[in-house]
């Protein structure tokens, strides 16, 4: 299980509010991590943040050190310095049939979209007028947890499970690659992105 960090499982607000430091975890994050550690899953955090920040996040969401197996931070060995950097699951050296990636940025998972589920950006509500975190009534991680349970019972590989509309959790929707990202070149726009919530307009599969 590979998880992105910022705006996916936690939110730190924006720079203007750093003085009032608070790391807000996404709803159902604890339940998801507890479930993953109960099934002995390997949990990897993969973020473009600095290592110092990542250590703070790991300390906050996993103080006992048993939920997170590895973390990957900003490093020139995988990250380019432009906005087109990607996170390719093939670089992890794990079996792609057993690997699932939770991300909020479609561009990052363009090379492993068969294994990725996109979620809405989780943004801390402190700098909004209503003070509520966005999205409201966020159940994305609960759905992800349901997906993991389904994957366990169905004994299917991740790409096969996600591509099968009859088997997968109904909350997981799909959108054709070229509709999700207009600037994506044709040779990369293969297949579709899977997403949860209202990130894209549902049902646009052609």
């Amino acid at each position, binding site marked *: 299980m590979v998880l992105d960090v910022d705006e996916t499982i936690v939110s730190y607000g924006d720079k203007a509010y750093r003085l009032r430091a608070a790391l807000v975890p996404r709803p159902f994050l604890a339940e998801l991590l507890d479930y993953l*550690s109960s099934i*002995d899953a*390997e949990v*990897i955090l993969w973020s473009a943040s600095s290592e110092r920040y990542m250590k703070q996040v790991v300390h906050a969401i996993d103080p006992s050190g*048993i939920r997170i*197996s*590895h973390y*990957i931070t900003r490093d020139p*060995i*995988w990250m380019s310095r432009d906005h087109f950097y990607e996170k390719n699951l093939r*670089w*992890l*050296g*794990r079996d792609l049939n057993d690997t699932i990636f939770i991300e909020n940025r479609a561009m990052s998972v363009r090379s492993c979209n068969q294994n990725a589920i996109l979620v809405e950006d989780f943004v801390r509500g402190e700098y909004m007028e209503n003070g509520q975190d966005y999205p409201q009534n966020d159940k994305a991680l609960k759905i992800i947890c349901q997906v993991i349970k389904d994957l366990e019972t169905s004994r299917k590989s991740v790409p096969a499970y996600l591509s099968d509309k009859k088997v997968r959790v109904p909350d997981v929707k799909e959108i054709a690659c070229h509709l999700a990202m207009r600037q994506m070149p044709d040779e990369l726009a293969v297949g579709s992105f899977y997403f949860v919530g209202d990130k894209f307009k549902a049902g646009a599969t052609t």
Partner: protein
Amino acid sequence: MYANKEKAKHTHTEDRFYGAKRLKEIGTRFWSDHAARAYFLTMIGGITLAYYLLVEKQDRLRHQQGLVGPKERLTSLD
């Protein structure tokens, strides 16, 4: 300043480049010694080679094992 009042130290000098001149002297003496030169340059070359081999090995291992290394089994807490 105060300790040196009325040139109390017998090694006192007004030459502000005294240290630099001594350093240059030592350097010249060092580089004129054939063995010292060979030793120093061999050390630099050796360290560079060792660093290159280390980086090359790291790259090869990363290519084989991926970004996070081999899979670890979680050990139970008790």
